[in-house]
């Protein structure tokens, strides 16, 4: 399946990258964009001086995209995710999630959030951690069990239902947290450097899993990272950000095929996209 991407890829225009919807989801083209930010700014009031965490962000994310936010520390990528998730309020500009406000989207439980740390509840076993959102949503026990079984199957942890978080490795814990975010089957998955604390081998493995998952479903993924290879390997579109103030430098469309394996990282096409990301990062990152 080839994706035709046509973003204009500049900071100012920031791209209504319309693309053909995957087969069987042709209706989705008519629905509002998953994320639609216009002139979004956020200023934190700190003790000494106000900090401009986000500056005039324009970004449209369509259904079924895998969008990575990449940039050095302090460029506002996590803040942007938190604004999408209604965990922070913007000071200027507008943002719509599925056509409604972030708060309405949060109340409608329309996204799953995966944090930098697994944030599992240590007193709950794996199964009950995965069922936590389902309990909050008031699902029946049968429904909860069915859904947590399915989610754990997806991340390959079916045999670990009764284990407690401390009995699992860091990579397994993060997989549990992904299963937890997917257990209520949101259309949008927000992932904030989910694999940042893991070793490279585990990370590669989870990247393959995640990509496979995205290929099989109609998920929209917004993924924060500061690894160029990770961003290029996973994404259909890469948003390059720069710090002080946090803004979008460039939006890079990847023309790599949707079905990828780790070997693609040695191909010229992959290296070409990675090179473009690196150039954009260098452009946006001045040390003066």
């Amino acid at each position, binding site marked *: 399946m080839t994706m035709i991407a046509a973003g204009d890829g500049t900071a100012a225009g920031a791209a209504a990258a319309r693309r053909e919807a995957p087969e069987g989801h042709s209706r989705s083209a008519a629905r509002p964009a998953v994320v639609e930010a216009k002139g979004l700014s956020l200023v934190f009031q700190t003790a000494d001086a106000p900090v401009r965490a986000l500056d005039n962000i324009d970004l449209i994310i369509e259904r079924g995209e895998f969008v990575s936010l990449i940039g050095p520390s302090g460029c506002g990528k996590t803040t942007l995710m938190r604004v999408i998730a209604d965990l922070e309020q913007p000071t200027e500009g507008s943002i719509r999630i599925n056509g409604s406000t972030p708060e309405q989207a*949060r109340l409608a439980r329309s996204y799953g*959030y995966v*944090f930098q740390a697994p944030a599992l*509840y240590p007193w709950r*076993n794996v199964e009950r951690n995965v069922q936590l*959102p389902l*309990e*909050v*949503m008031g699902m029946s026990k049968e429904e909860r069990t069915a859904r947590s079984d399915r989610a754990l199957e997806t991340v390959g942890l079916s045999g670990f239902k009764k284990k407690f978080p*401390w009995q699992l490795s860091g990579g397994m814990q993060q997989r549990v947290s992904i299963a937890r975010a997917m257990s209520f089957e949101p259309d949008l998955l927000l992932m904030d450097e989910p694999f940042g604390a893991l070793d490279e081998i585990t990370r590669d493995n989870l990247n393959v899993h995640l990509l496979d998952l995205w290929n099989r479903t109609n998920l929209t993924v917004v993924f924060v990272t500061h690894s160029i290879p990770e961003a290029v390997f996973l994404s259909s579109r890469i948003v390059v950000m720069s710090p002080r103030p946090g803004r979008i430098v460039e939006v890079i469309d990847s023309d790599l095929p949707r079905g990828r394996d780790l070997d693609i990282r040695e191909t010229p096409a992959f290296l070409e996209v990675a090179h473009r990301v690196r150039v954009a990062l260098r452009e946006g990152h001045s040390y003066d």
Partner: protein
Amino acid sequence: MTAVAEAGRGRSSSGAAARGWGRLRQGRALPVLVVLGAIMVLWYLAALWLNAPRTIEQFQREDRADYSIGELAAAAWSMERPVLPTPGQIAADIWKTTVDTRITSKRSLVYHASVTMSSTLVGFALGTVLGIAIAIGIVHVPTLDRSIMPWVIASQTIPILAIAPMIVVVLGNLGFTGILPKAVISAYLSFFPVTIGMVKGLRSPDPLQLDLMRTYSASRTQIFSKLRWPASLGFLFPSLKIGIALALVGAIVGELPTGAQAGIGARLLTGSYYGQMVPMWSALVVSGLLAMICIFAVSAVERAVALARGGRA
């Protein structure tokens, strides 16, 4: 302290070394026994030193001049009304007043202990409920945090000996007598560690764990029942151990100003009236044993809860 550290190390090491003498050395028993032995030796020496002058007086009245050190010690360690009774005398008195006396008798220490324990447990229950309720209020309502917390702390700066008689008198006037005034004093002491521990415990979830609940748009009640409360249990049990020991102290203190007829406090009071050191020491030792039993009971519940929640045991 050393004993505890020793015991901890002993449990973590395993296998070949843990046999025979090695096993005894690495177990819990030996360090405790060594300390106990040292205390016994010092105690008997102190009893000899404190009781000897009166024993010598006694010998002089009887015109006995040719006594040996051994005879002096034997006499000093078996005085009818010693300044400091020996552990042996105390043990014998405890045996006499527990095993050899009917429980219904006023002389039975078991009877007195049960009177004190019942108000301890009622007061501990009241104090725990009150302490948790105050902590929940403080954590959820910012106004309460600012207005109540200083009073909670101030309440513990007032000497309990000063406030105990007032509580007894006021409650007596309102028609409450018997167990309740003592339980109120127990509760007054035991709610404090519970409040402090639970405020810390209910605030212990980290920002990510709280954000997670927010992404599920969980209600305050759900955040409490699924996150704050379970996260606080690790803080609750240490507080409960302090709380139950304080509840026991409160119950005993509560028995003093009332001229209570029954209870460990009453035994201490009558002992001091009549200069009977042996029953006083017996009451003291029994109250110490009661405190240990209470704390072991709380620890047992704590372990059971930890195991049920997948603790490392």
